[in-house]
Structures are given as structure tokens and as C-alpha cells.
């Protein structure tokens, strides 16, 4: 019994000892856990190191690729620079420097010297005509010209020469509205700017404003049809213009009165006009350039709207190599009030002009010279009194010295031989600049 008790006690003690476990801090081998932790740490660092190594390899590969590309690009750039900028690139850069070109100022100006024997004038004068162009888009343009000039007396004078909107409706048709140069013949619309006109002065029937010409230079209204249509052969065309406007207005009811502005129509009637022209010779034919056409302009001129102004004209030109011949004929008839001395103020005028350029003469300076001669005259039929126009006739000769295609020094000598006034001599010189 006692032995059983001792055995049982021993069992209890052994079990108790087996159940008892010391806390970790009181482990028998503390270095083992530290070693294990360190081993884990080493493994983690190894994997991190491996990942970094792979990343580094990738970076090196990319760097190598970039260096290769950079070298190739550098070679391309060096080759491009050595070639110089392409015209397209240069155009793009210059275009951005100068702006988009939608607003352009062009025009002309001149300094002039005039000598008139009978009038006993001997004077310098100057004029400046800037032309403003604004391209709203590819089918609408607004254009305007200011005329800044020095009148014989008083301060500087400024006129609105023209201001109109051009709407291109299709390839062959345009609408123009505003104040425009009269589409009649060639001279008024196309030849009167001094850098284009080969003479200093205008032909007699096409003198402007108060100078006594046969037509007003401008009208206000709409050119509801205008354009050019190509015919067979390069350079051939048919051109046309049809328009309505306020019409002519005169300074007085007198015979021989000058035109005056008609900014607000002086009657309820509108004037109408039309012009057409042909250029029938193809450039390939080598026969030169031939052009001819006709114009008309008709409207009531008095405030009552009873009296007609009627006009028609023809014009033509021929150019071959350095030679040019052109001319224009104009006929006008103005009804006069019933209490006038005569019923109609009937005037005609024409000019013919020849020019020859010495540009083919291979002599320095001389190849810049152009020779020019003109005969112009104006008639007034049914004249019953000496106060009427003196039937002016004029022979003009001169030369142009072209400094550039749009800058010319011009010299002109005029011999005036009117039918009912003393003969006269005039000299005009001008430095004209088109810009």
C-alpha cells in the first residue's frame, strides 16, 4: 500500500514536471532564435538585392537604347542642319514672324514737280494713298483706300477713295458692295495709280474730280455680278461686271459742270452700269496679249430724278514683247434742264498711248528705261458759247526710269493744242512708289 502511494506520488511529480515549461526568456539556448532571425533577415536582403540587380540591368539596357537613339537623332539633326532649312520650314517661320497676313497694308505715294507755262505755276506736291486689305476668310475680303493729298490751298485733304467688301461666291462670280472705283474701261479701275500709270498725268478724258474728266471715278452701290471666266487656252478669259449705284451728281446745272460726290443719293433713282472684256489670245500662241471691251454707265443725275446721264465706252490694248499700245474712247450725254441754252451736254474723249520698254537692251541703267507717248483729246459738241470746254487736245511724251518694278522716276512733257484756247507747254516729273 505504501509502495503504491509512493509510486503514485512519483507519477504526480513526474507529470507535474512534464507539464511545467519555462518561459522563452528562460530558454535553455537563446542564441538559436537569434540565429534563425538573422538567417531570415539575410534571406530577405538576398531577395531584395536580387530584385535591385534586375532593376539595374533593366535600367542599363534602357540607357543603352536611349544612347543609341540619341546618337541617331544627333546624326539626323546634323545632316538636317548641314542641308539648311527647307523652303517650307522657312516659309512657316517667316509666316509666323510676319503674322498670318490677313491684314495687309499696300498702296502708293509720290512726290511731284509741275510746271505750266500759261498758268504760270511752278510747284512741288505730294500724295499718299494707303490701301488696307483685310481677308476675313478665303472668300470674303474688305478693302479700302485713303487718299491723303495737298490741295492747292488749305490744309491736308483726306478722302475715302474706296471702301468695299468683296464676296467670292464661286470660281467665276463675285459680289462687291460699298464705295468702289468705277468699273468703266481700263484706266479708272486699273491704271490710275501713279506706279502703274506710265505718265504723270491722266489722259484728258480721264482727269479726276475737278480737273474736268468725262466720268466720276467712284460710285457707291453694289456690283452684283463680277468675275472672270476662262476661255479656251491659257491666259484667255472673258470678264464682266454689272452694278448699280447712287449715280452721278454735278456741281451745278451749267454746261461743263464738274462731277461732285453723291454720297447720299440726290434722287430716288439708281444708276446702273456694265462692263465686259475679252482676252482672246492664248499665251502659248506667242502672239502677244490682246484685250478689248466695252462699258456703259447710265443714271438720273438731278435731284428731281428727271434728267439722264448716259455714257458708253470702248477700250483695248495690245502687248507684244516690250511694246504696248492701249486706248479708250468715251461718249457721255447729260440732259440739261429745260431752261438751259442747250438740251444736252454731249462730250466725247479718247486717248491712245504707246510704250516701249528698253529692258532687253543689254546696257546698264538704260535697261531700266521705258519710253512712252500719248495723244488724248476731249470734244464737246453742240457748243454755243465760249464759256464751254475749249476742246482740249494734248500730245505727251516722256520716259520712266524704273528703280524697282514698283518704283519709278517719271518725266513728262505735254504740248497742249486746244481748238479754242492758246497753246500751252507743261512739264511734270514724279517719283512714284508702289508698296
Amino acid at each position, binding site marked *: 500500500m505504501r509502495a503504491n502511494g509512493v509510486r503514485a506520488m512519483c507519477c504526480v511529480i513526474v507529470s507535474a514536471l512534464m507539464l511545467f515549461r519555462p518561459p522563452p526568456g528562460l530558454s535553455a539556448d537563446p542564441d538559436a532564435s537569434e540565429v534563425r532571425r538573422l538567417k531570415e533577415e539575410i534571406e530577405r536582403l538576398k531577395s531584395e538585392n536580387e530584385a535591385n540587380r534586375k532593376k539595374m540591368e533593366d535600367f542599363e539596357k534602357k540607357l543603352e537604347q536611349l544612347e543609341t537613339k540619341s546618337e541617331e537623332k544627333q546624326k539626323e539633326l546634323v545632316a538636317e542642319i548641314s542641308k539648311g532649312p527647307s523652303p517650307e520650314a522657312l516659309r512657316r517661320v517667316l509666316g509666323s514672324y510676319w503674322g498670318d497676313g490677313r491684314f495687309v497694308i499696300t498702296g502708293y505715294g509720290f512726290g511731284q514737280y509741275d510746271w505750266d507755262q500759261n498758268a504760270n505755276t511752278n510747284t512741288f506736291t505730294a500724295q499718299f494713298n494707303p490701301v488696307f486689305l483685310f481677308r476675313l476668310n478665303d472668300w470674303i*475680303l474688305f478693302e479700302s483706300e485713303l487718299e491723303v493729298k495737298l490741295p492747292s490751298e488749305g490744309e491736308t485733304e483726306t478722302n475715302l477713295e474706296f471702301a468695299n467688301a468683296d464676296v467670292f461666291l464661286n470660281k467665276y462670280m463675285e459680289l462687291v458692295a460699298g464705295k468702289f472705283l468705277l468699273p468703266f474701261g481700263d484706266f479708272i479701275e486699273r491704271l490710275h495709280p501713279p506706279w502703274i500709270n506710265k505718265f504723270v498725268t491722266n489722259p484728258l478724258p480721264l482727269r479726276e474730280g475737278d480737273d474736268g474728266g468725262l466720268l466720276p471715278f467712284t460710285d457707291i452701290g453694289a456690283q452684283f455680278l463680277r468675275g*472672270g471666266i476662262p476661255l479656251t487656252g491659257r491666259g484667255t478669259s472673258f470678264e464682266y461686271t454689272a452694278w448699280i449705284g447712287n449715280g452721278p451728281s454735278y456741281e451745278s446745272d451749267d454746261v461743263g459742270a464738274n462731277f461732285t460726290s453723291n454720297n447720299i443719293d440726290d434722287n430716288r433713282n439708281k444708276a446702273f452700269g456694265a462692263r465686259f472684256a475679252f482676252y482672246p489670245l492664248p499665251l502659248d500662241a506667242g502672239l502677244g496679249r490682246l484685250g478689248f471691251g466695252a462699258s456703259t454707265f447710265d443714271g438720273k443725275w438731278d435731284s428731281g430724278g428727271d434728267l439722264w446721264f448716259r455714257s458708253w465706252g470702248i477700250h483695248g490694248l495690245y502687248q507684244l514683247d516690250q511694246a504696248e499700245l492701249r486706248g479708250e474712247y468715251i461718249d457721255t450725254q447729260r440732259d440739261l434742264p429745260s431752261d438751259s441754252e442747250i438740251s444736252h451736254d454731249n462730250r466725247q474723249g479718247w486717248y491712245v498711248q504707246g510704250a516701249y520698254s528698253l529692258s532687253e537692251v543689254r546696257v546698264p541703267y538704260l535697261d531700266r528705261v521705258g519710253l512712252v507717248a500719248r495723244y488724248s483729246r476731249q470734244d464737246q459738241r453742240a457748243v454755243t458759247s465760249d464759256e464751254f470746254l475749249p476742246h482740249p487736245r494734248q500730245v505727251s511724251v516722256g520716259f520712266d526710269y524704273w528703280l524697282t518694278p514698283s518704283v519709278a522716276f517719271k518725266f513728262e512733257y505735254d504740248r497742249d493744242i486746244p481748238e479754242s484756247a492758246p497753246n500751252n507747254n507743261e512739264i511734270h516729273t514724279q517719283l512714284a512708289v508702289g508698296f
Partner: protein
Amino acid sequence: MTTKTWTAIALTLLALSLIGSVAGVGAEEPPKGEEKALFRQGAQLWPQICGTCHNARPGGERSPAEWDTIMMHMRSVANLPAEDAQAILVFLKAR
């Protein structure tokens, strides 16, 4: 003029404007192949057409963008057909 006349003018205008598409001179850059052909045409037209009234002015006087605007003005003043104006414009812009 009467209302009927004005109406007739307006209708004529509308009908004629529908005949062709709206066409500006510098509206679109022509395709490369076409541009060469236009350049050659322009080189031939430039002295003749411009020289009808005045000395032909060199393309270098103005920037290409300015020529777009100036040629619209010239097309109007000289009643140039659109094709001729386009050819001269290409020539001027390339010089």
C-alpha cells in the same frame, strides 16, 4: 427699280452662286503634285496677266500669307478667273 426686279436679281444671284462651290483664292493648299503643275502655269501667267496693267512684282516682296490677301484683291480688280489667280498665287508664294 420695282420689287419684282429686285426679287429677280436676288434669285438670279442665288442661282448663279449655286453653280459652283464657294472658292477663295488661297482657300486650300493644293496637293503636292498639283502644286507643281500650278507653279508652272503661274510662272507663265505671272508676267503676262500681271503685266497687262503693271510690272510683275516678285514674290519675295511679300510673305506667302500676305500674297493670299493681295491675290484676293487682284483677283477682284482684274476679274481673274479663280484658276489663273490660284496658279499665280502658288508661283508667287514659292519665290
